[in-house]
């Protein structure tokens, strides 16, 4: 069996006296979708930041297996190397698209920029690839020169997906990617994410408070409360046979439509 793509051991982060994240360990393999669920303040977004090395931990380690199969400690990576990793082999899809996109740049520019980071130089090729990706995320390629400021929330989110996936990353972090969107827009986005993740064999860590989103997208699940992981398992197992009192409360609090 191959070794994990991403490994975390004993991750911890305190904000003042409060533990935002305490002693979290996990292994993530290629093609695996891991959902981190919990209520606001449970530490799930802090954990995502730690895994993506956007936040530095007070304790613990994160290792990543690079494309040459070398496993490296991400916390010792230089800033330039870390940024290259983020722009090429990783994606990060944020809840607020204005933070994941460069708003002053055109839609095509947002996609093309990441391609240039991996060395693409030919304008015609970059534009053609950008058009192709806009179509894949169901944005009319005729909008390629428009600013994302003129896009709806759902379109911005789809553009963010195209921007992140164009470099064919192996690992994508997602922070509440469908929150705050209309239900119909959410369904379309979920279906798109589900299809692309399966087609490209992506490893994904997705943070969500929405258990239905976790059920639809993820293979396995971690439930967080007060900065700690209190329950883990197969997604359907955690949702259908929750063991911890808090998980039982979460699952039973969902309104069935």
């Amino acid at each position, binding site marked *: 069996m191959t070794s994990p793509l991403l490994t975390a051991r004993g991750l911890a982060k305190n904000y003042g006296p409060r533990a935002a994240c305490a002693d979290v360990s996990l292994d993530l393999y290629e093609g695996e979708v891991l959902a981190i669920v919990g209520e606001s303040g449970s530490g799930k977004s802090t954990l995502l930041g730690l895994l993506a090395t956007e936040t530095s931990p007070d304790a613990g380690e994160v290792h990543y297996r690079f494309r040459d199969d070398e496993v490296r400690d991400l916390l010792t990576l230089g800033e330039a190397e870390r940024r290259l990793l983020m722009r090429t082999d990783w994606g990060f899809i944020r809840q607020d698209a204005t933070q994941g996109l460069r708003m002053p740049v055109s839609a095509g520019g947002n996609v093309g920029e990441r391609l240039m980071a991996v060395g693409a130089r030919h304008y015609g090729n970059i534009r053609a690839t950008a058009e192709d990706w806009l179509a894949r995320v169901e944005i009319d390629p005729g909008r390629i020169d428009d600013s994302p400021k003129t896009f709806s929330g759902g379109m911005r989110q789809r553009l963010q997906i195209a921007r992140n996936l164009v470099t064919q990353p192996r690992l994508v972090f997602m922070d509440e990617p469908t929150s705050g969107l209309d239900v119909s827009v959410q369904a379309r986005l979920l279906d798109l994410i589900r299809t692309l993740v399966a087609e490209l064999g992506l490893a994904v860590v997705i943070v969500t408070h929405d258990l239905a989103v976790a059920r*639809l997208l993820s*293979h396995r699940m971690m439930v967080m409360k007060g900065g700690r992981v209190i329950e883990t398992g*197969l997604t359907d197992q955690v949702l259908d*046979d929750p063991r911890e009192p808090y998980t039982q*409360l979460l699952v039973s609090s969902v309104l069935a439509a």
Partner: protein
Amino acid sequence: MQPLIKLNGVSKAFTLHLRGGMKLDVVDDVGFEVMPGECVVLGGPSGSGKSSLLKIVYGNYRCDHGSVLVRDGDDYVDVATAEPRRMIALRRDVMGYVSQFLRVIPRVSTIDVVASAGRDSGLSPEVAQARAGELLSRLNVPERLWDLPPATFSGGEQQRVNIARGFIADLPVLLLDEPTASLDATNRAVVVELIEARKKAGTAIIGIFHDEDVRDRVASRVVDVTRFAAKAA
């Protein structure tokens, strides 16, 4: 010949923390084996734990005690203790599950709902597409519905889509939770034929069937689940 499924000392209780820690015993000390080509039908009145037992075998419900061994090639995987990653592979390569209800995904067409189950288990896209069409035809789902998402289908139509999903890949272990519950006689007969064909091909099946006619026709033997009722403490 080695059994494909071996249950030994399986016990399960639910602890309802929101009900003051109330304990609901489900089953106690379950033990039986299923050989290739056998269809073991779980018998017993409703509430005796048949569906729960099936979900324990699939890893959907956790097993508190005992072992649930499912054969993957030459190895047995213990569902009770296997890592999620191992379970995902086991479900992809070995063990299928057909519930009464279809979990629909918005916007995905009926034919693709079925074909994707085949692709997930390793069929090529072309083969999966062709088999999905064959199964839907055989289960009398009209072709004009294939491009529509099944969300608006009747209960019986959704159930037939679900059956097509469950039978598209030739997995060696199949768990069937009342697959014929809302079907008419014609379609029940089709499901019986599908089950018979899988038995001949060496699939090990555990099933729950309320319909006596179907049960009598497909059962190699019946395991009475009331035998495993949790003993009063």
